[in-house]
């Protein structure tokens, strides 16, 4: 079989897969007797039409960028990290602990510490599965799934039994003072009234650039990609597979934990039960859809941000459609861009070679 030309491989095929996913999603909407185009219109309005809607879109996008990068980074090293959900959750513990310890201190001091401390907790939660794969041979896929559940139980215990202040009914930690919280953009920019988007958004943009640089512009990134593409060749090149697996998993956990900085530090100001609420899992779809490239991840995260915020609007305007349609879209995206990503490859290759006879290199 002739290989696809590079532009088709990098742009056309993924795009077709995404279109296919949305097409099937549209058909499902159609099947329940709703108009998918109308739904898209409402979603776009909800996501961009007014200031706080746009702010919410960016807030969700922030979460998804981090989760998507977490999955992408690990995937570049050949590791399928299904655990950003749990890593973000445990990261929240680090964020709240440092926040509470320095409660009342100015955010300018606490924010970086939240990043470090939350990151460290998330890193630990991802490092253990990494260690177990590198040294004990258990697979990160299964272990990270299990660690998501263990995180749920552990955090549930800590929140309801340890962090919950006396006299509070709901399961949550003590709140941070306003000055300690990561400032929301609405305090500077009028446009974002009522929306939770905060400084962490810029951290996400920095993370995108940083990960791009890390993966394609550094020796470390070179090693990560070599490992992911051909572990034997990586070994041949003197790259320690074991060390890389552990380091990459830990870094992936740091990225996932930034979801907690966004949520715990920037929005809730306290640690709430199950605050991650699926954002970690969205990262899987974002990573596959964005093909692990920060540009793709950024765009996919924005798309899912639109879907999540627009989905809220949709729930108001079209009672027949719930936000869960977005989870369905997310599933279809993973299915068509991840599991069946090569489904269209052969037909596409045939189509292209027929229309433009063999110009590619041999």
């Amino acid at each position, binding site marked *: 079989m002739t290989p696809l030309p590079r532009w088709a491989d990098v742009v056309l095929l993924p795009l077709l897969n995404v279109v296919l996913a949305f097409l099937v999603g549209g058909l499902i909407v159609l099947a329940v007797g709703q108009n998918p185009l109308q739904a898209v219109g409402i979603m776009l309005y909800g996501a961009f039409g007014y200031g706080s809607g746009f702010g919410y879109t960016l807030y969700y996008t922030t979460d998804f960028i981090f989760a998507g990068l977490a999955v992408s980074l690990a995937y570049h090293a050949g590791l399928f990290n299904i655990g950003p959900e749990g890593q973000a959750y445990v990261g929240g513990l680090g964020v709240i602990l440092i926040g509470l310890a320095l409660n009342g201190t100015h955010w300018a001091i606490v924010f970086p510490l939240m990043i470090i401390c939350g990151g460290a907790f998330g890193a630990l939660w991802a490092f253990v599965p990494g260690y177990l794969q590198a040294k004990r041979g258990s697979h990160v896929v299964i272990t990270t799934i299990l660690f998501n559940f263990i995180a749920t139980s552990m955090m549930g215990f800590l929140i309801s039994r340890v962090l919950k202040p006396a006299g509070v009914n709901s399961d949550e930690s003590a709140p941070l003072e306003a000055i300690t919280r990561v400032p929301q953009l609405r305090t500077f920019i009028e446009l974002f009234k009522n929306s939770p988007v905060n400084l962490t958004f810029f951290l996400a943009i920095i993370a995108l650039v940083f990960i791009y640089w890390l993966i394609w512009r550094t020796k470390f990134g*070179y090693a990560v990609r070599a490992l992911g*593409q051909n572990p034997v060749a990586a070994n041949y090149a003197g790259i320690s597979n074991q060390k890389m697996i552990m380091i990459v998993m830990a870094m992936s956990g740091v990225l996932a934990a930034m979801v907690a900085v966004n949520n715990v530090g920037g929005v809730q100001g306290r640690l709430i039960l199950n605050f991650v609420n699926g954002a970690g899992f969205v990262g899987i779809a974002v990573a596959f859809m964005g093909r692990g490239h920060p540009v793709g991840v950024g765009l996919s995260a924005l798309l899912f941000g639109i879907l999540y915020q627009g989905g809220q609007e949709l729930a108001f305007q079209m009672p027949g459609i719930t936000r869960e349609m977005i989870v369905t879209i997310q599933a279809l995206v993973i299915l068509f861009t991840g599991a069946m990503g090569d489904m269209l490859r052969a037909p596409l290759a045939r189509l292209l070679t027929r229309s433009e006879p063999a110009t590619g290199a041999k």
Partner: protein
Amino acid sequence: MTSLHPTNAQRSEGTAAAPLAIELVGINKHFGPVHANRDIHLAIKRGTVHGIVGENGAGKSTLMSILYGFYTADSGEIRVNGTPATITDSRHALALGIGMVHQHFMLVDNFSVLENVVLGAEDSAFLAPTLNKARTQLKALARDYGLEVDPDAIIENLSVGQQQRVEILKALYRGAETLILDEPTGVLTPDEADHLFRILGKLREEGKTIILITHKLREIMAITDEVSVMRQGAMVKTLTTSETSPGELAELMVGRRVLLRVEKGPASPGKVLLDVQDLVVTDDFKVPRVKGVSFQVRAGEIVGIAGVAGNGQSELLESIAGMRDQLLGTIRLNGEVLSLEGDDGAARARTAGLAHVPEDRLRMGLVTTFSEWENSILGYQHSYGDGPGLDIAKARQTAEEYIKKFDIRPPNIDLKTANFSGGNQQKIVLAREMERNPDVLIVGQPTRGVDIGAIEFIHNQIIKMRDAGKAILLVSVELDEIRSLADRILVIFDGKIVGEADPATADETELGLLMTGSHASSDKTPGPGTLPAHETPVQQTLVKMSPQDLSGKDPN
């Protein structure tokens, strides 16, 4: 080239010629660009042992897989007992009485012998009756042919020889009249091989037809009635075993290959750069593969390691390259002991001045999804840029230089490496490893899957390195290559160096004997240099030209 075109007389009934069990007419098979079988004609007489010999990649296994229905031929006809048959899957073949014992056993490791034997040949939906029947039949087969195996033993607990017996039992249980054995002795001890031959003898007595694929001429001479020689996908000749000799067969197998002449002056060895002492290395399953090897390579000389693949060469190379822990022994590069602990020993070996052209470029030497320039720095990425950043401009510049110097085509450093031809891929690896001025270069199978033009270029580059005062260790299964390049030849067998030879004077047959461990002195394991280069072969003639590639992949 003499193909065997069976005459009509042979085919028609009632002639004096023995009836044919199998007849292949004009078989062709392509795998992508590889023409694995070219217009093959072959007639196999019933009740005989028919050998098929040829080098690795000659197309023997493919041909038999077609006969067994695992692959379908692109064109040609198969006749079984004189009747044309369409064999589209293995079940057809079995129904026609053709059974196959694969080189890599098709057994389920955690099943019992009995379960493996009946798998796919069960009589009914419930197992019990079939298992009972099979148990009785296995007893009978064991009695008739000496195929004793405990029917309730679990496969993974059996020795390789016993596992092979299970494969044979599988075929016989299915009523095989013709039995194909693909490299059956490759994995057997000599005792086990002898036992196998006794079994095959009994099977022939009972009127079964046996097709024996091998590259060991001793086996051909010992057991076959007729032998067919294959070379580069084509059938060269079929001979009566009693009327031929190993020498003739070897010649037919290899063909009078144009020995690629390499312009090369005498070596002027300098100081010892690579010093290997009492090295013991295990494989991934902790089985020792290198069993106490010692040798030295000096500056300005090429030491060739000749041997049949799978005798420890791969592990030896990987160990010296820092990719594999040594169990015992030391490796000194330039006088410094090389520590191989951890899984990043390759980086330390490179720092110490070693360059490594691996045996399998696709598996090890290249990341095929990387672009050309990225592979030009694989293993040397640390020398590009001072900080954590990768100096891409410098890397690309390096790649451009290599492309010019080594005439890599197409000259496009952004092209994905997978899209280069085998020869050009090999040049990418060679350029990377040779151009960094290493003290020691270790090279595995430098021209495997490389076209003729590139071979010459690669050989010249290696000589150039030698003349520049590098110490070069060359491992190749191509004896020709070793002979034309090496200044000294060490022969490896079963993880030990069993002899040393001077390429100028060494006799091919003699080397073949050493490589297969059939030399008288093989059990006393002489150290390097203890065996005079002119010691002549003894015992029966045996040539083992080209070994089986253990990866099971076609080198093309």
